[in-house]
């Protein structure tokens, strides 16, 4: 069995699966259950200053469901911990003592004054916790008080607070980023400049889950009104993957350790984030949907996959997909693919035809010789992949690369074997021309 042990900015854990700072890590009771279930680490629910915040007493969550109530996206308006600071600190200390082999990171959020940070850091240090995570991400409630994403949206603040933390504490420091910005590389660069040991992302995305059309209020409705919340769960994974990848490949932050968060539900999700540069994978919604036991499958799934691929430790594949995350302009324009329908698998639903006919390139038949039949017209197919995505039968439509030297029936041009991209394309007004031209 592959070795899943992880060392992340000096913090050791038996596997890379951590619970993100959220209700699952709210108190000793939950965290002990999580460790018993096998989680490698936790980021404790964000601590603040006393008096503790208060939460709403109505619905905190809203969700988007599939037809069979599969939870696709979750939204919340919960704040940071609403328990007294001393209680949390006492429990953290106890848990760390009882579970020395697990990672225990403490999430923090206090007002942007150096004194406040000095104060809380001292208290956390006392607990023996492995590190701190600075919550610059919470998009609701806390941001209105000048904390959370209000800090995370201003790179200068991130850098300033990070610097205080590094200055006043010996603990490893992770900066948790908000996705509610235009370019995630800027806050990551600021964190690095401030001396952060790592970044973690994403926190939740500003969202309104729906509108109750009877009450005429955003939902979930609390006494007739609704407010935006933070979106998470499987639906946000693609957004998180992109942000993690952007930071991983940004020369300014290249090599900065990343703890990935956002929609991680299975071992495969985690492996994908790790391939894009993440050292650990944090989970919130999946645990809140199914309970802690899902970690068993995450552990065996990742380990079985690693065995199959011949990886013996996680660092062997962390970051391996980063070099292949490119920009559009560098994609090979000489790579030409055509959709191909496997007639043995085709169930003749016609979705590929109507999708292509109505909205794309009119490249799929619906009749051949008077018979219902769906075939790709190579003369029209631009290889866009839409039919593959709408076909209800897996692997029924595949994209087949055309061999160099053959003729593309659409353009009537020879498929070149050499790589060529937009930067040198004749249609590009900014193309880099050969010196001779």
């Amino acid at each position, binding site marked *: 069995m592959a070795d899943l042990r992880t060392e992340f900015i000096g913090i050791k854990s038996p596997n890379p699966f951590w619970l993100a700072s959220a209700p699952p890590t709210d108190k000793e009771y939950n965290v002990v259950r999580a460790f018993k279930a096998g989680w490698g680490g936790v980021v404790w629910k964000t601590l603040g200053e006393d008096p503790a915040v208060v939460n709403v007493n109505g619905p905190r969550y809203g969700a988007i469901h*599939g*037809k*069979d*109530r599969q939870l696709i996206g979750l939204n919340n308006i919960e704040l940071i911990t609403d328990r007294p600071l001393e209680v949390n600190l006492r429990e953290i200390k106890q848990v760390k003592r009882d579970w020395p082999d697990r990672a225990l990171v403490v999430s923090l959020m206090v007002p942007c004054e150096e004194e406040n940070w000095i104060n809380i850091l001292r208290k956390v240090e006392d607990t023996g916790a492995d590190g701190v995570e600075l919550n610059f991400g919470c998009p609701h409630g806390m941001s209105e008080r000048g904390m959370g994403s209000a800090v995370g949206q201003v790179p200068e603040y991130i850098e300033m607070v990070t610097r205080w933390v590094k200055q006043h504490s010996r603990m490893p420091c992770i900066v948790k980023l908000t996705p509610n910005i235009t370019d995630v590389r800027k806050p990551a660069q600021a964190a690095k400049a401030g001396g952060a040991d790592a970044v973690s992302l994403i926190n939740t995305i500003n969202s309104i889950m729906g509108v109750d059309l009877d009450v005429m209020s955003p939902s979930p409705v609390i006494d007739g009104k609704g407010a935006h919340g933070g979106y998470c769960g499987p639906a946000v994974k693609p957004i998180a993957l992109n942000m993690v990848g952007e930071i991983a490949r940004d020369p300014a932050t290249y090599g900065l350790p990343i703890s990935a968060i956002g929609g991680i539900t299975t071992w495969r999700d985690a492996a994908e984030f790790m391939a894009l540069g993440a050292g650990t994978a944090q989970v919130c919604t999946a645990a809140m949907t199914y309970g802690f036991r899902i970690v068993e499958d995450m552990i065996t799934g990742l380990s079985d996959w690693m065995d199959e691929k011949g990886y013996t430790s996680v660092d062997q594949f962390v970051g391996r997909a980063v070099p292949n995350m490119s920009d559009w302009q560098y994609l090979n324009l000489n790579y030409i693919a055509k959709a191909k329908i496997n007639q043995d698998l085709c*169930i*003749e*639903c*016609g*979705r590929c*035809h*109507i999708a292509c006919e109505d909205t794309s390139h009119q490249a799929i038949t*619906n009749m051949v010789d008077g018979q*219902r039949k769906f075939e790709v017209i190579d003369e029209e197919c631009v290889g866009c992949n839409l039919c593959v995505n709408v076909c*209800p*039968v897996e692997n029924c439509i595949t994209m087949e690369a055309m061999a160099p030297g053959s003729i593309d029936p659409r353009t009537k041009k020879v498929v070149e074997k050499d790589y060529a991209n937009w930067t040198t394309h004749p249609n590009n007004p900014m193309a880099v021309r050969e010196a001779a031209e």
Partner: protein
Amino acid sequence: MIANLPEIYMTQTKAGPDIAAGRLPDDAYAENFGDLHPLLDPHEAAVEADRCYFCYDAPCMQACPTSIDIPQFIRQIATGNPTGSAKTIFSQNILGGMCARVCPTETLCEQVCVREVAEGKPVKIGQLQRYATDHYMAENDTTPFQRGAPTGKKVAVVGAGPAGLSCAHRLAVHGHEVTLFDAREKAGGLNEYGIASYKSVDDFAAREAEFILSIGGIELKTGMRLGDDLDLDRLRTEYDAVFLGIGLGGVNALGVPGEDKEGALDAVDYIADLRQAKDLSRLPVGRRVVVIGGGMTAVDIAVQTRLLGAEDVTIAYRRGQDRMNASEYEQHLAQTNGVKILTWAQPRTLVGENGALSAIELERTQEQDGSLAGTGEIITLPADMVFKAVGQKLVQTGLEEKLTLERGRIVVGPDRKTSLDDVWAGGDCVLDGEDLTVAAVEDGKIAAESINASLSA
């Protein structure tokens, strides 16, 4: 199929016929005759609707005799608009509620559903159709259609079965004044008197007829029989057009000795009694029942006598099981209800003393050069009741002198017009009728459109 007959068939156990009511505990009747497929709940409907691929030029829609836009109505369920879904259904088939219950979907829409072809699990189109139409009928008292502005034209519709009801409704939509005649006491035709009771519970046929008539402009006159109380020539002079949807009132005879014995019954008549019975525990049924036939009626009578408490029920069919008109699903339904299916056997004699039935003698058959022949081997099944379910025929009431008939049925064109210029016909009574509720509905609809076209010309 029963290869070796159990001994009980060979021995005569009792002298007189054993026909009795109340064979079951009182509470068993309600359970036995409850809904075959209970209504889907909203979650089940959403999940099932989500299985539909919203096919392009959907095969299911082409297989529906009334061309209901199936992907559309299923999508409307999926998006939380069951009312709109029902409107989509009713616009093509005003008896969409009954069809959802009685259509042999396994040989119609669901047979060609791409998910049936791909994985043997079709989208449950029939049950979704019921979900939408039941929802609509629970929420609304009238059909979603408005009676058209009066045209001043009068149409006589004879027969208030599916064909007649469908025709009358569509004519009312076009603003014609309709008089709907039926020989029976209630409207609905075989929906009311024939369909197996577990397919249409809670008086659905009557509720549906009322729903359809709610459009207005249709006057229902029951107890009026063409041939007795009504005359085709009179109707033709009093009305601008006539539609005949009189079904097949007669039952084919077996043509064997002993058919007049007490206990030898028409399946359709018995089912009509069963459907109208207020208290099923008072309906007498034989202990040992033999059904002659191989269609839907044979299955229906066999299953329902079993449900009434008959101990031994055998369907005897003269060819192999694959040739039975009842669908595989129906055959399966019979067998899971404990009905035995005896194939390659045809009736020879109904045996009994003093006019009472005690057994039926069947002769083994085989196929020789494509035609059926008896082998001479005789099997005797003890029977207290024998049901004839070998097809129905048109009761001709003098029609043959006025209209072109062929093989005992009315000949019509693609527009369902008969050989008379002002008389249309549809449903079971026409040649090449499919003997399906849904086909009768389509006939009525097509005829109404054709009548409308000719009246507005």
